[in-house]
């Protein structure tokens, strides 16, 4: 039960005033600008855009500043802003095969057209704190090698040529949209992928790890992981043609899993898919493992009761804005609810005590 509680306005005002001061921190230290966050906290910005489900680096940087670096709070701010926007339409599905890759690696094939391109990665760093970053200094320019920008083929196409990998089915009917209709179960793959793409990275990481440790084991290989720029094309209804309206950075992960075959399918490899806004590699990788685990039904595999296979469990709990909203509301005043609980416990104790006295007397 919720009952409006009056009072506390002055305390709330003072709390928010203090919040603003604490957000600013020591005034002798220069204030962070939104542009600095956008340019130098890029992976935090990307994570907020991915889970906020809105590509706008300036707004994500602003949200991070406003939230004092609390990324879930920042995601919440971005989602709230998004709800105020009119929707102009949906894009033509992006062509990730035409991606201009900053990074593209495969763990399954060493030699492949376009090669293994590491990009600006943390991989192979020693994970030692770099004290040089505490001092101000110029960064030497990155090395370059002459190259023409151009697309590189998807790695799984190599397996596809031999028919060794399951083909992706074309979708039918309208594309479901979680932001317009509530989640309905069972969900088709398009709805699952949308939910996972905006899901919490930590939650997906934990689930993906659980499949690796044996809870719904699918033994994934990373067929390909790529990050780069894709063009977003939009049909302009009043003109009757599509324009390449924007560019976004995406991370795409395709995992390849062994599959013994079923009554209708010969033994082949199956795939898990991750696609996320921004440079969000851990998330894309986790998403592809969880996507694969959720496909047990269509692939005729057994449901072994693993959390990552349980569509209702995964899809109902992967959204961190929903989760934190429900979790955090319990810290807000529940005085009246609690008062009634208190009354109840007191009465039960009184009755128990009276019962004991009666028994002793008999």
């Amino acid at each position: 039960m919720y009952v409006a509680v009056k009072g506390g306005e002055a305390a709330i005002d003072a709390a928010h005033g203090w919040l603003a001061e604490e957000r600013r921190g020591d005034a002798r230290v220069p204030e962070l600008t939104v542009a600095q966050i956008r340019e130098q906290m890029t992976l935090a910005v990307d994570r907020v855009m991915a889970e906020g489900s809105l590509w706008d680096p300036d707004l994500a940087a602003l949200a991070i500043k406003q939230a004092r670096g609390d990324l879930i709070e920042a995601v919440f701010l971005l989602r709230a802003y998004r709800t105020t926007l009119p929707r102009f339409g949906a894009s033509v599905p992006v062509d990730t095969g035409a991606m201009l890759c900053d990074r593209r690696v495969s763990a399954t094939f060493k030699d492949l057209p376009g090669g293994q391109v590491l990009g600006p990665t943390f991989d192979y760093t020693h994970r030692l704190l770099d004290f040089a970053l505490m001092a101000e200094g110029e960064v030497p320019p990155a090395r370059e090698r002459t190259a023409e920008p151009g697309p590189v083929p998807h790695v799984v196409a190599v397996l596809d040529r031999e028919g060794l990998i399951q083909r992706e089915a074309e979708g039918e009917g309208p594309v479901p949209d979680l932001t317009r209709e509530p989640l309905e179960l069972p969900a088709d793959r398009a709805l699952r992928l949308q939910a996972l793409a905006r899901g919490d990275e930590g939650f997906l990481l934990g689930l993906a790890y659980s499949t690796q440790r044996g809870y719904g084991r699918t033994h994934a290989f990373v067929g390909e992981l790529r990050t780069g720029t894709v063009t977003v094309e939009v049909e302009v209804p009043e003109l009757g043609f599509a324009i390449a309206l924007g560019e976004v950075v995406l991370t795409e992960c395709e995992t390849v899993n062994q599959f013994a075959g079923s009554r209708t399918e010969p033994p082949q490899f199956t795939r898990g898919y991750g696609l996320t806004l921004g440079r969000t590699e851990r998330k894309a990788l986790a998403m592809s493992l969880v996507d694969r685990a959720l496909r047990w039904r269509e692939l005729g595999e057994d449901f072994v009761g693993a959390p990552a296979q349980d569509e209702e469990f995964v899809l109902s709990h992967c959204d961190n804005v929903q989760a934190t909203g429900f979790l955090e509301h319990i810290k807000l005043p529940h005085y009246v609810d609690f008062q009634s609980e208190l009354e109840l416990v007191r009465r039960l104790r009184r009755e128990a005590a009276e019962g004991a006295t009666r028994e002793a007397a008999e």
Partner: protein
Amino acid sequence: MDGSGQMAVAERPGWMGLCARAPGARLMELVGALGPRPAFAWLRVPEIGSVMIRGRAGGTGAAFHLGEMTATRGALRLSCGTVGHGWVQGRDKAACEAAALVDALMQTGAAARVRAAVLEPLEREALAQRRARAAKAAATRVEFFTLVRGEDQ
């Protein structure tokens, strides 16, 4: 669209897309340098909204909703009656106006001048930026060397 993600700017979708993706400040600078702003009336004042980005399962399968991006659109009419549509990525209404002006002017006798002063620089700069990233990526391409093993000697 060719492989580099670029649409030829000879056609209307090409020039509209080029303006849409250009850095807003640069677009406005180039349009401002064209001279006095032509007289126009808004048919639809710039409006900020979103576009839902779609992907495909496995890159090739069923379409799904990946997430949205911000965009701004507007439409104007020059005093000669030519209508220009401005669509830009992001939330910049002034850039939307500049894009709509370019679209309108490209349908008038000013097309050659606008092409040379606005579209060609934007296209060159976009290509230079793509080349720079491609060059940095290429420098991180792994070259494998086959090690000579003991038993082969």
